[in-house]
């Protein structure tokens, strides 16, 4: 039993030890990954600026949607290639912290915009008040 517990403890330590090397378990990039990330960011930045500056797409709502989607993709690109996010670094705790933050940000942003938009619409003095009881 003792030897088995011993062996298990060592395996655990070996797994946990990943987060305890001299760089604290954070992962690194290579020249290739930085250049890929940079190339993608340049493209993903240039397209929305080009779309808005030239007004290629006449429908503004469509342009806005494309711009927002491209920004979301670029944020993911930066996270992966520049901040080296993955599910393994620090035994997954950086990913957990980020998922929690993303949930908070989404609630705060959509909640604020949604509530305040409805408040604005309902407080506008353009309602016909004569029908009110």
């Amino acid at each position, binding site marked *: *039993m*003792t030897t088995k*517990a*011993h062996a*298990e*403890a*060592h395996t*655990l*330590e070996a797994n*946990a030890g990943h*987060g*305890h090397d*001299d*760089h*604290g*378990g*954070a992962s*690194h*990039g*290579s*020249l290739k990954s*930085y*250049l890929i*990330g*940079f190339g993608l*960011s*340049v493209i993903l*930045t240039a397209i*929305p*600026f080009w779309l*808005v*500056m030239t007004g290629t797409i006449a429908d*503004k709502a469509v*342009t*806005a949607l494309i*711009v*927002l989607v*491209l*920004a979301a993709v*670029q*944020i993911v690109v*930066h*996270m992966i290639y*520049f*901040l080296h996010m993955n599910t393994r670094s*620090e035994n997954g*705790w*950086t990913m957990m*912290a*980020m998922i*929690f*933050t993303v949930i*908070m*940000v989404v609630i*705060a*942003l959509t909640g*604020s*915009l949604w509530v*305040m938009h409805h408040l604005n619409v309902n407080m506008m003095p353009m309602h016909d008040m004569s029908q009110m009881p």
Partner: protein
Amino acid sequence: MSVAITTQSSIQDSEPVFHVIDEHDHPEGASTMLGFWIYLMSDCLIFAMLFATYGVLGGNYAAGPSPKDLFDLKLVALNTTMLLLSSITYGFAMLTMEKSKIGQTQLWLAITGLFGLAFLGIELTEFAHMIHEGATPQRSAFLSSFFTLVGTHGLHVTFGLVWLVTLMVQTARFGLTEANRRRLMCLSMFWHFLDVVWIGVFTFVYLLGMLR
């Protein structure tokens, strides 16, 4: 750690212990990166609140200037380029740091700092131009929230630059020691994080502002 298990097991032979009794050894700075990441996430929440404020107030011009009257997308594109270039040069600094080439690391850090300064210079020029035209933070809710959001990002870049210079001096004096490498990696995360926030700023504030 394993010693602790053995002694415990020999004392109470009938009851084997399956958990770690002693806190295992943490080398200095082992948790710094995770801690710094959590700080960045809390900073992210600050920016989320400022973005939400801008999203709510961004359309209230109070009969004052609107984004179309104020923003110059060419200047913003130039600004974005500066920050993006500073991100990749910081990446190069990290790569040369891993190869322990101290001179090249310092050179890339200096180039990063110059791009950061260029970004700040362009942003301050834009602010000065807007204020000169009367578009001050007091003018409308749109401008208050604009200056708070973009100004907070600019302040972050400013402090990032102060930190960058500090670490360059540290590296020059003490070399690429373990502690300095760790600090440079924290600043690397901070710097790339600011670039991520800037993606939100140029999309949400400038590009969507021009489409309003």
